[in-house]
Structures are given as C-alpha cells and as structure tokens.
C-alpha cells in the first residue's frame, strides 16, 4: 500500500517537472523566434497590410487619403489603356521565363552535380557568374545597340545578312525576345545555387539502394530518388522563380527604355513604377500590386501541387 502511494507521488512529481520543462522550452522557442517575428512584422507585414488597405483609397502622398471603395480596381480593368497591355506582357514573360528558368536551374544543377568536386566548383562558378558580376545590363546594351557599333549589328553587317543597323531594342518584335533571354540569364542564379546545395544533401545511400533495386538509368534515378528527396528545395526554387518571372521590370527598363516604344515591353511592375513613382497615385499603385500578388499566389498554389507529384 505504502509502495503504490510512493509511486504515484513520484509520477505526479515527474509530471509537474515535465510540465515545468515544457513551459521553459516553449519560452525558449518564443525567444528564438522573436527577433525574426518582431522585425518581420515591422518591416514586411505592416507595410503589406497598409498597402493593401491603401488600395481602397485615393492617395497622392501629400493630401489626406480619401476612401474610394473599389474605384482603383475598376479603373484598372475598365479605363486604363496600358494595364491590359502590361498584364499580357507580364503573362508572356512569366509563362516563358518562369518554367524555362525553373527547369534550367534544376537541370544545370543536376548535370553539374554529376562531375567530380573540382569540375563541379568550376562549372557552378560559370553558371553563377551573372549574379556575381552585379547589374551588368549594359553588356547587353552594347551587344544589341541599335547603331552599327552594336556587336550584333556589326557582325550581321559584315556578313552581309543586313544592309543597315537594326533597332533591336526599339522594335517591338525583337525587344520582347531579347528581354526574355537577358531575364533568363539573370534569374537563374539563386535557384541554381539552392539546387546545387540541395543535391549535395541527398542521402547517397538512397542512390546505392536504388542501383541495387534495379534502377537502370539516370532518368529513373532522377524521378524516383533525386526529385522526391529534393521536394522542399524545389518548392523554394519555384517560389523564387514565380517572384522573378512576374516581377520583370529592371531588365526592360534598362534595355528598352522607360516607357518603352508603344509600351511594347511595359509590364505590371514597370507600370507600378510609373504610377507610384512618377505620378504619385499611390492608391492605384497599391491596387495594381494587390492584383499582381493574387496572380502570383494563385500560380504558387497551382504549381505547388505539381511539385508534390514528383516520384509518383
């Protein structure tokens, strides 16, 4: 009788101790999360919320905001002549550079990973070079310059393919293609490098087991072992590519000018820059970015399901 009492007492004491420990642990959790959470709320969440609220107001940064309901959104779709053009250009950029960028960033990383350590370092340096050399759009400007001094023009002139310099960046038919190429070249870096380190971390024993279990070629290995092990890194790459693909703006501004001829390379973000930065219509700019956000968020949800299918 005495013995059982003793045991239950001990259990009770243990439980109390355990609860105290959990409470202390929880406190540590919050302390570790706090620096991020506080700063994140201050510099990201609060600005995003106020921007979203601002989209229902008319605000020029000088006079007080005036509530206008859905006017900004209606204006975007019904009155603004440039918005549809910007939206369709953005979709063209996104649909082309997004998937190609994502695919290239993975394929290149996967291929580079096939080589030995030294070759691997050299090759990944080559592919990461554009990100290391800073904002070097000017190289493309020199390459595609509209006068005879442009490399492409001078090359084509000397071969005799063209008789006079082509205005590459000023003509709508070429500008879009050139911007897509440059954008791809620049947007590869982050995803590529994340993939490289992701691939390094796939458990090598899985590959051995795969070879024993009868995986015959690298494509099977890729589908059944590599991709499933990389899912979370692929998800990261996907979000980064969506962000880059829908936010194309620096490249067209640097190459095709701002605003571009006939708005041929106007995108949602260049429109934003114009509306918010030059015209100070901050409420309208906020409404445009809310629409852009919804577009990207839907894409992310849709593609997230696709990434999860790897290995099935």
């Amino acid at each position, binding site marked *: 009788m005495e013995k059982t009492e003793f045991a239950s007492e001990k259990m009770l004491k243990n439980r109390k101790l355990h609860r105290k420990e959990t409470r202390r*642990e*929880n406190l*540590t959790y919050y302390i*570790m*999360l706090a*620096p*991020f*959470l506080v*700063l*994140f709320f*201050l*510099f*990201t*969440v*609060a*600005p*995003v919320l106020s921007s979203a609220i601002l989209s229902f107001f008319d605000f020029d940064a000088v006079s007080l905001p005036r509530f206008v309901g859905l006017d900004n959104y209606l204006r975007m779709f019904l009155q603004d002549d440039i918005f549809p053009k910007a939206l369709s250009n953005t979709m063209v950029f996104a649909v082309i550079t997004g998937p190609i960028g994502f695919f290239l960033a993975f394929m290149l990383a996967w*291929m*580079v990973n*096939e080589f*030995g350590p030294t070759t691997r370092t050299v090759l990944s*340096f*080559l*592919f990461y*070079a554009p*990100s*290391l*050399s800073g904002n*070097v759009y000017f*190289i493309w400007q*020199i390459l595609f310059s509209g006068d*005879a*001094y442009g490399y492409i023009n001078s*090359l084509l002139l000397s071969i005799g393919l063209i008789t006079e310099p082509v205005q590459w960046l000023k003509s709508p038919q070429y500008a879009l293609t050139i911007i897509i190429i440059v954008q791809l*070249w620049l947007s*590869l870096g982050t995803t590529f*490098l994340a993939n*490289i*380190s992701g691939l*390094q*971390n796939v*458990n*090598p*024993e899985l*590959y*051995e087991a795969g*070879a*024993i279990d009868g995986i015959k070629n*690298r494509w099977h290995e890729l589908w059944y072992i590599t991709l499933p092990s990389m899912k979370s890194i692929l998800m*990261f790459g996907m*979000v980064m590519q969506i*962000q880059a693909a829908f936010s194309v703006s620096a490249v067209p501004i640097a190459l095709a000018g701002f605003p571009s001829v006939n708005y041929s390379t106007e995108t949602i*973000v260049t429109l*934003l820059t114009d509306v*918010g*930065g030059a015209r100070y219509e*901050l409420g309208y700019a906020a409404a445009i*970015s809310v629409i852009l*956000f919804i577009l990207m968020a839907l894409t*992310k949800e849709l593609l997230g399901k696709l990434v999860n299918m790897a290995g099935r």
Partner: protein
Amino acid sequence: MELTAKQKKQQLKLKTARRDQYKRYTRSTGGNVLYTLFLLIFGLYSVLPMIYMVVTSFKPLDELLVFPPRFFVIRPTPANYQILPSLLDNLSVPFSRYLFNSLFISIVTTVLHVLVASMAAFILAKTNIKFKNVIFAVVQFSLLYNAYTLEVPRYIIYSSLHMIDTYWIYILPAIPSSMGVFLMKQFMDANVPDPLIEAARIDGAGTMRTFWQIVMPIVKDGWLTLTLFEFIGLWSITPTGTIFSESLKTLPYAAANIVQGGLTRAGASMAVSCIMMIPPILVYLVSQRSVTQTMSSAGIK
C-alpha cells in the same frame, strides 16, 4: 578523437569512391558526352559578359572606340586601373570610409540575418508551437508582394523609428528577409530527421544546444548558400532617399560617382566594375568550395 587533415581527406576519398560505384549501372557514355556539350554551351553563354568586362577594362581608349567593335583587346593596358587613385581624390569623403561602410554593413547584416533566419526556421520546422503554419504561410506569401509598393509605408515606419540617415536603415530591414527563413526551413525539412531532434532531447540537450550543435552543422550547405545570397545583395546596396550624410554612403554609390564622365571614362568604369566584383567572388569561393567539395553525410542514421 580528432582526425588529422590527411585522415579526413582519405575518408572523403573513400566516400566519393563509394558514391561513384553505383554510377556504373546508371550512366551511359552517350549521355555523358551530351551532358558535357550542353554544359559548355550554357556555361559560355553565362560567363561571356563577365569575361567581356574584364577584357574591356584593359582596353586603351582607341580600342574602346574602334569600328567595327572587337571583343578582345589587342594592346592591353593597365591605364584604366592606374587613373582610379587620382579619381578618388575628387570624392568629398575619404575612399576608405565608403569601403568601411560597405564591408561593415555587408558583414554585420549577413551574420545577423543568417542567425535570426536560421533560429526562426528551426522553430518553424522542428517544434510544435502555435500558429507555426500560419506564420510560415505568411512568410512564403510575403515574398510575392511587390517590394516597390512597400516603399512608402516602409519610409513612414523608418522615419517614426528615427532610422533615417543612420546605419540602422541598412541593417534592420534586411534582417527579417523572408527568403532566408524560407530557404533554411526547406533545408531543415529535407535534411534534419525528427527522430534526431527527439533523441537529442532525451539525451538532455536544450533547445538552443540542439539548434547550434546538431541542426546547424547538418544544414551547413544551406546557411553557407544563404550567406552568399545575402552578402551579394548587401554589397550592391545603394540607399535611395533614406541616407543623406555622405559619410554613411556605400561603395557602389562612390563607384558610380567615380566613373561619371561619359565615354572617356568607359574604360575606368569597367575597371571599377571589375574591382567591385572581387569581394562577392571571394565569398562565393569560400562558401561554395565547402558546399561542392564535401560529400554530405547529413542526416544519415
């Protein structure tokens, strides 16, 4: 027992050999050739502009203006680099100040960011605190909101915190960047098995210790890569409308000022760009050497 460098190297070799053994069954020669060709073409495509920058920085003025334009330099000259010191004299603040500012901001912020982001990622990935899924969803989606529109609300916050025209404006907003938490969480999800955390707990390791001594070494490749991303971003940072004191401005700002002066400075401009490239390349080499050369044994067993 500590292993000597030689022993470690031997171990690495053994591991690599072991890894490569299975490759005999899953790789074909034709595939290997195709691979190499593909990589060479794309590698050239992406490294060419960098080479062009270096080559051009050694061109004398007449070769910069030659027609038809030439890619390579015929009579290389260091003149573009030699005039830089004299151009530095035109700056109103000593050059060393800009250099210090850039190094200070880049290094301090990168370290703080990687630490803060990793801690938050650890809590979100490996504990059961309330709202962790909500917080993580907000982090992911915040990446998709256009940063340009946030400038005005952010400016209001900066000025109410008296951060305008101080070092804080560079450092504080960069610390909670969502990308870092996202990347680190994904790495921890992929590579740190939950039983390992549980085992550490049972063995009596506290949360902080589990994070520092068990999780961080496993996701080393993740935070090395994040360090590189963050450093590159901060190295090229130029303040817009938030810094007015000349003594608080950064190197890219000074670099842009040095080379203003049109065509005659085209060579010097390339030289400056080349010099600005050096620190990111160094950080790249240090971090990625470690990433690409180690055979991962992360999370095994």
